């Protein structure tokens, strides 16, 4: 192990050691202390729409199968035969009644249990004869994630039975996630995944990505080339047509989440014309805005552009509307996944335009995202040197200028350009790395500020 965690993340100075982006021991500890504990995004319900549907996914470095059993229940199962470890399911997706291991034939039903059909062939071949009927099949089902939550068509799981409920894990960050997962008019969970998931390998530490999306407006300069060329769905320069005026960074220090978005409001902001490249599509968004206004009335609502759910899921709520997940492969490599969302009940041309726009923006071939990969890969690479690994990254932008944010529990706000949310992310990461159980991590119990208003977040009045 390198330095103690508190020397790697120097919170009062806004410093983060480069060691955490390249060190093998720290990476192993991340797998046990972060990935085996936190709630992780594993799938979208459209991938497992019908009973018997399955899709493979990842949790940390573990391969899992997300299934919908014959009763419609969702399971997250470790994708390895409990007998001799063969990767049970080598398809990415499909529909089946059972998974049968190619190695010795052990077979499992979609809920992960060993098939109990009478006879000597199903379940465990030779059970009655070679095993003399003595093997207890109930003990040898697939290892399952004990915590699974289907939330507005997204599927999440945790390996830790003591993890707080998913909604508590999100806290009021949930409202921002809702903005992305709800329809443009605010209809709950009105989202559909465009078929297919982008998966690609990046020679980057996984943390660069969630850090980028949690609140880094400062890196906008990276995307100057696409802004000059313009993929704005209304035509012209820029890469979006819907960036609002009130945008700020909002973070949740006790939870590790953060977002670039707008503070809660009680009246719908004026509609900004968008998607003007196709008048009919533009009309859909205009009408959605009107319905949204009606739906929320004078109630509280939020909106957002991009955010991160600790540790490795980020989402864009506007343009493009997507979910990204960053799977750790090694300290210096991650596998990045991205899916695109559209309103489920939108007309086909709205979906088509969104798909085309998403593809031109995101993924390894995206005019915007390809430049992010270059940054993360070469920032990782140039932290490997004996001297370079010994120095610190600077995250002091806006340090000490966070302001408590009204109407959201435990939230702070720190203006459009700040590294507040990155500091929140790495402070939470440090808590996970130090904690021995969820007892030390659950909001209100951990070393961070107390949840529930007992102790206000340090506030400094400014600008």
């Amino acid at each position, binding site marked *: 192990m390198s330095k103690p965690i508190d020397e790697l993340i120097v919170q009062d100075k806004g410093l983060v050691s480069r060691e955490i982006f390249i060190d093998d021991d720290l990476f192993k500890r991340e797998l046990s202390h972060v990935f085996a504990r936190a709630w992780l995004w594993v799938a979208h319900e459209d991938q497992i729409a019908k009973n018997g549907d399955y899709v493979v996914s990842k949790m940390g470095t573990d391969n899992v199968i997300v299934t919908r059993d014959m009763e419609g229940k969702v399971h997250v199962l470790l994708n390895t035969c409990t007998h001799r470890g063969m990767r049970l399911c*080598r*398809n*990415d*997706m*499909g529909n089946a009644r059972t998974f049968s291991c190619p190695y010795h034939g052990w077979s499992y039903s979609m809920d992960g249990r060993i098939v109990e059909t009478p006879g000597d062939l199903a379940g465990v071949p030779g059970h009655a004869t070679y095993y003399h009927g003595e093997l207890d099949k109930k003990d040898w089902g697939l290892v399952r994630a004990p915590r699974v939550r289907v939330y507005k068509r997204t599927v999440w799981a945790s390996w830790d039975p003591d993890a707080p409920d998913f909604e508590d894990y999100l806290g009021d960050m949930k409202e921002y996630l809702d903005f992305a997962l709800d329809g443009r008019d605010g209809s709950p969970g009105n989202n559909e995944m*465009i*078929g*297919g*998931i*982008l*998966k*690609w*390998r*990046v*020679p*980057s530490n996984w943390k660069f990505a969630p850090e980028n999306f949690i609140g880094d407006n400062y890196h906008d300069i*990276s995307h*100057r*080339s*696409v802004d*000059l*060329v*313009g*993929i704005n769905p209304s035509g012209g320069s820029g890469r979006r047509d819907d960036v609002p005026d009130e945008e700020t960074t909002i973070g949740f220090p006790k939870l590790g989440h953060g977002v670039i978005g707008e503070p809660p409001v009680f009246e719908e902001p004026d509609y900004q014309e968008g998607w003007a490249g196709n008048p009919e599509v533009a009309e859909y968004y205009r009408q959605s805005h009107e319905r949204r206004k009606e739906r929320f009335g004078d109630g509280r609502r939020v909106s957002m552009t991009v955010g991160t759910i600790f540790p490795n899921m980020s989402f864009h709520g506007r343009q493009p509307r997507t979910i990204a997940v960053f799977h750790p492969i090694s300290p210096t490599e991650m*596998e990045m996944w991205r*899916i*695109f969302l559209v309103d489920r009940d939108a007309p086909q041309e709205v979906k*088509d335009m969104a*798909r*085309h726009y998403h*593809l*031109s923006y995101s*993924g*390894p*071939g995206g*005019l915007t*995202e*390809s*430049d992010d*990969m*270059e*940054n993360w*890969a*070469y920032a990782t690479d140039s932290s490997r040197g004996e001297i370079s690994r010994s120095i610190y990254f600077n995250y002091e932008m806006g340090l000490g200028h966070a302001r408590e944010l009204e109407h959201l529990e435990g939230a702070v706000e720190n203006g459009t350009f700040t590294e507040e949310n990155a500091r929140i992310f790495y402070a939470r990461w440090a808590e996970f790395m130090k904690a021995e159980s969820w007892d030390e991590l659950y909001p209100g119990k951990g070393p961070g500020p107390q949840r529930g208003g007992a102790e206000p977040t340090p506030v400094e009045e400014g600008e």
Partner: protein
Amino acid sequence: MSTVSKLEEIELLHDVTQWFYREADLLDYREYAEWLKLLHPEMRYFIPLVRNVPRIRDTEFTREQQDNAWMDEGYTTIEKRVKQILTNIHWAEEPPSRASHLITNTVLLSVEGEKGSREVQTRSRVFVYQNRIDDEVNHFVGKRIDTLVEGENGWLLKHRTVHLDQSVLLAKALTVFI
């Protein structure tokens, strides 16, 4: 195809493969503005995602203009990609990658129309080697199905599908044209 004589087939194959080699030269020598002139204004460029699925299913590739894809676009977006490279601040290609396109195994799948306005469909293997900075190496290998149309100034590319032989893309970015 049956109406095409052996001689015409040989000549066509020669023309088309030479066209591919010239296109590869333009890309490999970064003559992007010239390369754009080879594209039909209504061209579509499609690189589907590939999935590991049971052999009996037809869901291996995502569907054009319906599903997610590595690329699924027309001339306008391709032109933007070129313009982006030419800003000289598209960091994924600045400094420029070194790329070499190898095109082989070309067969004619169909020939339609009269000489002077023919449309041919071909299938080839493509190997694009990309080397970047110092040790960044990517191999884009796969099958390429091209539709070329004959016009006054020669052949133009009207449709290209690339079936990459990778499900997880083993490259951090896809900034070379395949």
